[in-house]
Structure formats: structure tokens, C-alpha cells
């Protein structure tokens, strides 16, 4: 590698470090925590958070997104939209190869889209408006839509639409394909080995199409099941990067104060995780709007933010996180007001019927939050019974609609048509799923607004529609919005440029480098 030799020579010549400060350095190994251990790495088949975080460096999408959610080139180097907003033409980057050396072409894009429609629920939804996909030549892909779809350019991120190698998957049984265990992508890092329960090792892709990148030689994703042990691993220097959510919140201030430690809340703009309580609108006291509003007044969300989340995040005002397009704060407000909650409960004729609360089994923070919410609700006279369960058991109960109140947090994916509408429109009610419209809220007016909003072409029109939808939803309280979550990434300051996009660590190692 001539570049590395040159760099070494420069260093040997005694050039001051400051002269090189902005110039990325090549080499080094980064240890990062991955929590929990992903169930697999084949991003087209499984898309849990940890899968996206690791596999986002192995696979790539056509686009990536800036922190302001503007599309940026990745496998597509340019794109254009027709006048009627129904035809999207992508020019693919030339000279891209899969990790096994085969070239990446438009045929792979066509195959990936077909495969993802079957294996990736969210991609299937995102692609619902696509009429046909064609490849006029090896480096051009044309998507033709049935009708204009405002957020269409927002669906090409690696976790939403990863590109899959056609030559390894076509004609095979996808579920049992051996490459699921040793995934082959086009990304800056190649899968090397996975010691279950211990670590996942990725190594640099020497033939990466962006010359000089990636800068890091190897990434070890360390698997450490216990939250306290993860904090200790950072303190002892075993790991350098703690991605958002990998340590308990009360450890964040302590770890942030450590020497040579940098903390950032950036890198979640695309996801904007929003936490809320599913309220089962179908049955019992919660079928009454006034009881649901009482729940909003009864819960001290500032307390949750300041105490349980250590001041991280923001109290949610409604169905959209404030970083999402067309967000409005001009909606009915629900401050902490137990007296008003009691009055509403009385008005609704609530008589102490038992209400089951399902906390989220994601660790201490969520357990404590469940306890605090239960106490808040009991204080206004609600009869709450906490149901203890693990993640799978909780998902089962939520999917079967066998709950009254249940904690959750979901990603918003940058646009109300992608991440918000799905939770409130009646067409998204289906048994067995743990996201989309789990609460059973059904309002024809809301259905119409979200349907119109998705296909409206002008920004001002969409803004008007979504603002109206937000106002109606906040008045109706189909679910109880809690907090816009913030998952700070904690890392050693010598790790540079890890978070440069709106999806953060998930595709961040492409640009990251180590300042030794």
C-alpha cells in the first residue's frame, strides 16, 4: 500500500501531528460492543437493531442519508426524478465488486428488490407503490411508481434496502443458503469470523471502490451480555465504542467523564426512536378516549426523562418525533396533572377495573420505567397489575392483543409516510405483529389523511395534511407518547469520523479512522 508507506515516511520525517490532524490515518483495530448478540447477519433476512449495526458495514444500500436526512450517493452515484414524480432513475457506481470479486450490477438491484419484497416486511411496505423496475443497462435502474410517493427517496438506506448478491442467492433456498452465515456484500468490511457469545470479527475490504477507504483494518464486535460488565469493559479499555443503548443510562454520565472519552447523541436522526405505551383501544376502560387522555395526564414524563433516562431525550408531544418531516408542536398538550387525570377517570366512569401493564424486557432502565408508570397510574386511582415477561413472551402477548398497556419504542424512518402512519391507519391492523397498528385505533379520517399525505407531491400540501393528522391523533390518544429517546454513543476520542450520517454507527465504519 503506497499510501501507508508514504504516511509512515512522513511520520518518520518528524512531521508534527497537527499538520496531519485532518488527514485520516490508516490502520488499527476497533473494538465495539454489540448488544444483544444478533440472531444472524444476513440483513435481507433479519433486521433487528444489532443486525443492522453490524451488517450495515458489510452490506450497502443504493443511498445513505445525511444527519438532515438528505440522500447521499452510495451504490448509486446519481439519481433523477421525472416531472410527474413517478419515474426514478438511478445511475449505479461502476467498478463495484462483491467481496468474492464478482461485479455488482443492475441485475443485483433487481434481484434484491424481488427478494426483499418476500423477506423484509418494511421493504415490502416501502415498495408497495412501485409498479415496475427495469434495468436498461448494467449500470442504470429505473423505478416506475403507480402514483407519486413523497418519501420514495427515503427508502434506500442499507437497513431498509440492502443489496444482495444475485449470483449467490438466485435459485437457492434463501433461508438455508450457506452465505447467510458468512454474508457477502459490497461494503467496506468483510465478514471474517463469529465466535458465538464472544465476538464478531470484520476485516477491511481491500478492494473497496472508494480508494483509501476504509481506514480501519479490523472491527471486533464484542458480545457482553451484562450491562454492568459492558461499562467495565469500556473502562478497562477492552472496548473503544459503546453504541447507543449498550450501557444503562445511569452509567452514561460516569463514563462520559472518563479521560479521552467523547460522547455524541448524533447518528439516530434517520431512526428517531420514539417511546410510547400501546393502549389497547379495543376493550375495557381504555376503549374510552377520556381514560386514555387521563393516562397522558397521569404520567410524569419529565420525571421519566430526568430520572430514568438521566436527562437524555425529550418529552414527546405526539405521534411524530420532532426531527421528522412535517412535525408540529401545535397540538393539544398533556402536562403532568394528576387532578385532571382523576377527574377524567371519574367522568369516564372508571370503577377500578384491573388494567394489565406489560413493561419492555430490555433491561434495567425499562423495568424501572415500568415501575414508575405503574406508580403514576396507581396514584390517580387506576388498578394496575404488572405482567412480568421476557422479550419473546411480551411480543406474543402484544401480537395477540392480550394486554391493556404495553411499553414499546419504534423507529420513525424520517418521514411520516414511512414510520408514523403505519401505527395509526386501520389497514395496518393485523394480529401477530408487534409494530404497526397494534393498539387497534381506527378512524376513517386519519386513514384518509395518511393516504393523501403519502401521494401528495408538494411539500406544503403534505405539511398541511400531516399537521392536521397530528392534531387529531393527539386529541384521540390512540397510544400514550412518552419520550423521544436519545441513545448516546460513547467512544474514545481517538476514534474519528465514526458518526457522519443520519444512521450513525450502522454504516459508520466506512469513514471512521483511528488517531493513534
Amino acid at each position, binding site marked *: 500500500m503506497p499510501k501507508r508507506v508514504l504516511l509512515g515516511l512522513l511520520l518518520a520525517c518528524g512531521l508534527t501531528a497537527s499538520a496531519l490532524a485532518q488527514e485520516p490515518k490508516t490502520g488499527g483495530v476497533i473494538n465495539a460492543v454489540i448488544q444483544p448478540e444478533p440472531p444472524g447477519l444476513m440483513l435481507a433476512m433479519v433486521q433487528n437493531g444489532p443486525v443492522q449495526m453490524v451488517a450495515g458495514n458489510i452490506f450497502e444500500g443504493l443511498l445513505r442519508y445525511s444527519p438532515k436526512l438528505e440522500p447521499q450517493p452510495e451504490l448509486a452515484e446519481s439519481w433523477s426524478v421525472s416531472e410527474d414524480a413517478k419515474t426514478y432513475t438511478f445511475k449505479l457506481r461502476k467498478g463495484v465488486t462483491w467481496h468474492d470479486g464478482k461485479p455488482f450490477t443492475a441485475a443485483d438491484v433487481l434481484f434484491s428488490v424481488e427478494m426483499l419484497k418476500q423477506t423484509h416486511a418494511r421493504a415490502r411496505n416501502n415498495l408497495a407503490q412501485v409498479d415496475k423496475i427495469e434495468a436498461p443497462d448494467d449500470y442504470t435502474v429505473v423505478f416506475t411508481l403507480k402514483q407519486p410517493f413523497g418519501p420514495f427517496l427515503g427508502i434506500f438506506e442499507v437497513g431498509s434496502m440492502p443489496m444482495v448478491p444475485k449470483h449467490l442467492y438466485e435459485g437457492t433456498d434463501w433461508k438455508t443458503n450457506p452465505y447467510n452465515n458468512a454474508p457477502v456484500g459490497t461494503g467496506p468490511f468483510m465478514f471474517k469470523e463469529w465466535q458465538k457469545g464472544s465476538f464478531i470479527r470484520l476485516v477491511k475490504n481491500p478492494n473497496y471502490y472508494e480508494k483509501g477507504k476504509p481506514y480501519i483494518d479490523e472491527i471486533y464486535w464484542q458480545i457482553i451480555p451484562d*450491562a*454492568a460488565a459492558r461499562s467495565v469493559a469500556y473502562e478497562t479499555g477492552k472496548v473503544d465504542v459503546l453504541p447507543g443503548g449498550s450501557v*444503562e443510562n*445511569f*452509567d452514561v454520565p*460516569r463514563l462520559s467523564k472518563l479521560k479521552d472519552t467523547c460522547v455524541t447523541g448524533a447518528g439516530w436522526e434517520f431512526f428517531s426512536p420514539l417511546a410510547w405505551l400501546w393502549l389497547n383501544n379495543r376493550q375495557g376502560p381504555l376503549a374510552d378516549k377520556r381514560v386514555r387522555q387521563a393516562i397522558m395526564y397521569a404520567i410524569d414524563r419529565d*420525571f421519566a426523562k430526568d*430520572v*430514568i433516562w438521566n436527562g437524555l431525550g425529550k418529552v414527546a408531544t405526539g405521534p411524530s418525533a420532532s426531527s421528522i418531516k412535517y412535525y408540529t408542536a401545535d397540538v393539544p398538550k398533556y402536562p403532568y396533572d394528576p387532578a385532571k387525570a382523576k377527574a377524567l377517570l371519574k367522568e369516564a366512569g372508571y370503577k377500578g377495573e384491573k388494567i394489565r401493564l406489560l*413493561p419492555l424486557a430490555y433491561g*434495567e432502565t425499562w*423495568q*424501572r420505567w*415500568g*415501575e*414508575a408508570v*405503574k*406508580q403514576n397510574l*396507581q*396514584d390517580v386511582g387506576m388498578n394496575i*397489575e*404488572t*405482567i*412480568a*415477561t*421476557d422479550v419473546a*413472551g411480551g411480543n406474543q402477548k402484544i401480537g395477540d392483543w392480550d394486554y391493556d398497556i404495553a411499553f414499546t419504542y419504534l423507529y420513525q424512518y424520517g418521514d411520516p409516510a414511512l414510520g408514523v402512519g403505519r401505527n395509526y391507519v386501520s389497514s395496518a391492523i393485523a394480529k401477530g405483529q408487534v409494530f404497526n397498528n397494534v393498539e387497534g385505533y381506527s378512524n376513517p379520517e386519519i386513514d384518509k389523511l395518511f393516504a393523501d399525505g403519502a401521494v401528495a407531491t408538494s411539500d406544503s400540501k403534505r405539511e398541511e395534511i400531516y399537521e392536521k393528522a397530528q392534531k387529531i391523533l393527539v386529541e384521540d390518544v390512540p397510544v400514550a407518547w412518552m419520550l423521544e429517546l436519545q441513545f448516546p454513543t460513547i467512544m474514545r476520542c481517538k476514534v474519528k469520523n465514526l458518526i457522519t450520517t443520519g444512521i450513525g454507527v450502522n454504516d459508520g465504519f466506512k469513514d471512521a479512522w483511528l488517531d493513534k
Partner: protein
Amino acid sequence: MKQFWKSMLKSPSGVIGLVILLLAIGVAVFGPMLFPNSPWRMVQRPFLPPFTLSTVPLGTDALGRDVFAGMIFGARVSLLVGLVSTLVALVVGVPIGAMAGYFGGKVDDALMRFTEFFQTIPSFALAIVLVAILQPSIYSIVASIAVVSWPPVARLVRGEVLSLRTREYVQAAVVTGQSNAWIILREILPNALSPVIVLASLMVATAILLESSLSFLGLGDPNLISWGYMVGAGRTVIRQAWWITVFPGIAILISVLGLNLIGEGLNDALNPRLSREGR
């Protein structure tokens, strides 16, 4: 009976144990009356160190809940689980052991194989599995502790009954045509009871530890506060706030120690050979 109390009160460990147990029971029964508020209520700022405010003498936990109130209410759960699950284990274990020892032969074989089936499974692992399957609640916890703790009772009772079975007064009862049930209940069991009582006192201690361990692992009843839950919930913040784990930990330590001391005292008092030596 008088004799029993006399020798019980003579053994210092027995006295200490009794005092501790009575104190714990007193706290469990009357404590909640002094603290009308739920121990889950957030009363002060979180992580308040102990001995800074008289209203929350032992400080507050991660959510600002009173650690002292938690310990008072926790005593109730811990003792209740300990006593009830031991009682259930006795109700299951004593009849099985008595029947196995009294009837012998095939009945003995069958019952003992059944007992061994439970004994071969590590008891804590079995308890975890049972609670996880049944969903954590006070009932499933009591049931699973009882399920893992009855086999030693059955073995012990069987051994006692086996030796008593050959005594002349038992044979006399058989000859006079008494029914089997009568013989077991009136002639044999009363004489086999002392080691069972000693064992039971130790079982209560073990049950308290088991409940604490289950709660520590997050398998406690989510609607009831217990010492094990407090230790488990405070574990992750032990470096910022030691008091959340240490005080309930001490409570567990003392009550288990007290029950063990009682067991020792009972052993001294009920074992005729030992108490004779003592005199």
C-alpha cells in the same frame, strides 16, 4: 413441652435465633401499618444517601423510593414465601416419605424413584425454569420453591419411619388390628417429627434465599417488593449507590442466620441424647 422450651432457652444460639425471627415477624406483620404508603412510591430525589434525611433513614433508590419502606414490605414477602413454601413442601414430602417407609417394597421403590427424579435436577435451575414457564407471580414462586424442596423431607421421613416401623409398640399396634393410617398418624409420625422440625426451620431459610435469588434474577413477582428484588435492582448501580443493595442484603443475611440458629437450637432441644449430655 415444658422440657422442650427449657432446653431450647438454654441454648444461646436458639435464643438469638428466636429473637431474630420474632423481630422479623413483628416487622412483617406490623411494619406496613407504620408505613401506609406503598414502597413503590417515589418519595424523594433518587440516589439520596442514607442518614441524610430522617424521613428516609436508609436513603432512596434509583427512582427515589424509600429503601427503608422497601425493606419493611420486603420482610413480609420474604417471610411469607419462606413459611408457605416450606409448609407446602412438608405437606407433599411427609406423606410420601411416610408411605414409602411404612409400606416398603414396591410402594417404597416407586415413591423413592419418583423422589430421586426431582433430586437429580439441580434445584435452583428447576426453580428458575418453573417460574419462567408459569410466569413470575407470588403463587408460582411459592409453588416452584415447594417443588424443589420437598424431596429431602420425603427422604428424611422415610428413614425415620423405616427405623420406627420395627419398634415393638408399632408391632403391637399392628397386632391389635389398628388401621395403617391410624398407626402412621398416631404411633409413628409423632415420634419422627423432631428431625423434620429441625429440617423445616432450615428449609425456611433456604426458601428465603431461593426467593431472593429468583427476584435477583428478575423472576420475582413484579407487583410485590422483596429483598431479593431490591438487591437485584440495585446491583447495577452499586458503584454509585451501595445502600440500595447493602441494606436488603443485610436483612437477608440476618433472617437466614436467625433461622439457622433456630435450627441449631431446635436440634439441641429435640435430640434426647444431646440434651441429656447437656444436663
